[in-house]
């Protein structure tokens, strides 16, 4: 088992002929992901790498392939439309990799996706991977190994760092999810923790948060009240100054809210393990298995 992504996931790529889309489609196919189609308006009828059929619209792609998952690599100004299109076509898992989507666009997208009953991951995220089975997005496959640790994070390379440490220490992963660094994203920590709690394969969870917002605090409350599985958390940005956007659009301390200290406190209050350094995950998780 795993969360969100398994062997039955059939995937289309929106923006398959673009620079990033084509590169990562090849990587996903190589990893074993079931890529059943691509969408690039105006290139319908062509084939990607002589094998993957390209469609003009997501509706066409879904009708022809029955895809249940879509991954989006279109430029930021078109990303909102691409998400809406996927949700409207009945895609159930939508993974938006694109960085730089205007936040106001997401205020229209989020309720629409919810109403359609779809799950959106991202935007501004590395996607997700169920090691040995499938990956959707850009997480490098070779740093992961199958196992029973669930990983969820707001970051890309920090996730890779921790997953790499886990893999080296023999701690394989059930699913790794990058939920993205934007202020409004489709899936939050709590959604992932609930899914990991329900997943029989997952035995413990590593969670990498950062400054800004209250998502981590809400997640900590959920851990305290609703979870039996151990969760170890980390917060990036302990040295970040208030009021500055630290790369991720969502990584900003507003006034006195969203600080690393307040998030770490909420982890402690929930009885979670608190990793002070990325490397600390290994020992803290081992001690809780």
């Amino acid at each position, binding site marked *: 088992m795993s969360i969100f992504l398994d062997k039955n996931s059939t995937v289309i790529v929106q923006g398959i002929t673009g620079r990033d889309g084509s590169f990562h489609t090849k990587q996903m196919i190589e990893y074993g992901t079931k890529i059943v189609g691509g969408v690039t308006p105006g290139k319908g009828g062509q084939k990607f790498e002589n094998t993957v059929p390209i469609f003009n619209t997501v509706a066409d792609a879904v009708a022809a392939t029955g895809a249940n998952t879509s991954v989006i690599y279109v430029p930021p100004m078109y990303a909102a439309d691409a998400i809406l299109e996927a949700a409207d076509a009945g895609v159930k898992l939508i993974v938006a990799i694109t960085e730089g989507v205007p936040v106001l666009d997401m205020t229209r997208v989020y309720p629409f996706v919810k109403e359609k009953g779809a799950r959106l991951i991202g935007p501004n995220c590395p996607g997700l991977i169920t090691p040995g089975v499938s990956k959707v997005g850009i997480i*490098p496959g070779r740093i992961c190994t199958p196992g029973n640790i669930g990983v969820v994070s707001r*970051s890309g390379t920090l996730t890779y760092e921790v997953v*790499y440490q886990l893999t080296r220490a023999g701690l394989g992963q059930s699913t790794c999810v990058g939920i993205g660094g934007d202020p409004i994203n489709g899936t939050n920590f709590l959604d992932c923790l609930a899914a990991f709690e329900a997943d029989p394969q997952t035995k413990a969870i590593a969670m990498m948060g950062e400054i800004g917002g209250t998502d981590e605090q809400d997640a900590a409350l959920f851990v305290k009240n609703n979870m039996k599985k151990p969760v170890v958390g980390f917060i990036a940005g302990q040295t970040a100054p208030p009021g500055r956007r630290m790369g991720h659009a969502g990584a900003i301390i507003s006034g006195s809210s969203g600080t690393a200290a307040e998030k770490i406190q909420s982890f402690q209050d929930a009885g979670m393990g608190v990793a002070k*350094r990325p490397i600390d995950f290994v020992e803290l998780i081992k001690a809780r298995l």
Partner: protein
Amino acid sequence: MNIHEYQAKEILRNEGVPIPPGEVASTPEQVEAIAKKYGTTVVVKAQVHAGGRGKAGGVKLAKTPAEAKEIAKAILALHIKGLPVQKVLVTPAADIASEAYVGIILDRASKKPVFMVSPAGGIDIEEVAAKTPEKILKLPIDTRYGLEPYQASRLGFFLFNDVKQVRAASKIMQQLYSAFMKNGCSLAEINPLVTTPAGDVVALDAKMVIDDNELDRRTDVAAMRDESAEAPSEVAARNANLTFIKLDGDVGCVVNGAGLAMATMDLVKYYGGDPANFLDIGGSSNPEKVVNALKIITADPNVKAILFNIFGGITRTDDVANGIVTATKQSPLKVPIVIRLTGTNEEIAMKILQENGFSASSDMDEAVKKAVELAKSSVVTPSAARGA
């Protein structure tokens, strides 16, 4: 992106919000001339991207043009939170009967723009929220529908009793919402929204923050950026497509990815050092980015050691290695450099670095510890630069 008060007021004026006249000046003489023209008591307000202008002495009343000139001289010499004041806004002083707060923020929790209004205006709204939350009305807006008239009316009634003032305020809510959406704001506020003794409702101060992600499709908004009001290193970084934030420490950090960049800064602190900056070179591995990153970091005289932390996923570590070699050939480093690389093409990267006299580690903790030690015991010589 921050814009100045006078720019935010211009936007709101164009939407129809009643705002007293005002003019921008950059010399005391200009301020004197403007005050003379108004022929009344004026307020001179520092235009700088920092909160707490009033407390810092950046907002003052002047009864005469001569006094306005003197005050302007003092304000234009100020640094507020490290930023020099280069412009002031001169506006006739208004008679105030009451002060209210009106703001819209893009709220993460509700995933909507949220109106926040309070009859207790003119002061820090966070303080009102903490001490007297009942004095604030919060109203999330579904952007698919926009601000409906009944909602604008509800906000107006929360602020005022007089129906004429309620109607005036409701209209201002619509205008503020329209400005918020048109300009791609993450925050727009009028504080204070005042009533005058004659009963008029007027906006005396305005603030807007634009979502950086909007700037590509709103060139008119992007054109309002005042680069002279920002730290020069941050302007240079933005023009080189790097995300850079200057801090006070002495370990210069170059990292790929925002989360790892923050975690690296934190680790510097963990091992007893102080990061000199946040710098994310992003996902692409263009060697040019590395060259620009090193230029910006080495321009900071506080930097005593440079730390690279690269986890190659999409980023190819050999590209980063080539960037380091190119950059240091162009302008040799005067401070030691510690390099941590792992991931995509790590072996090739290590070879490139070794052939050019650099050593590198694949362990993050080891590299950070070393950079902190070197910054502390820094001896600035060319051999130190190579020997790290």
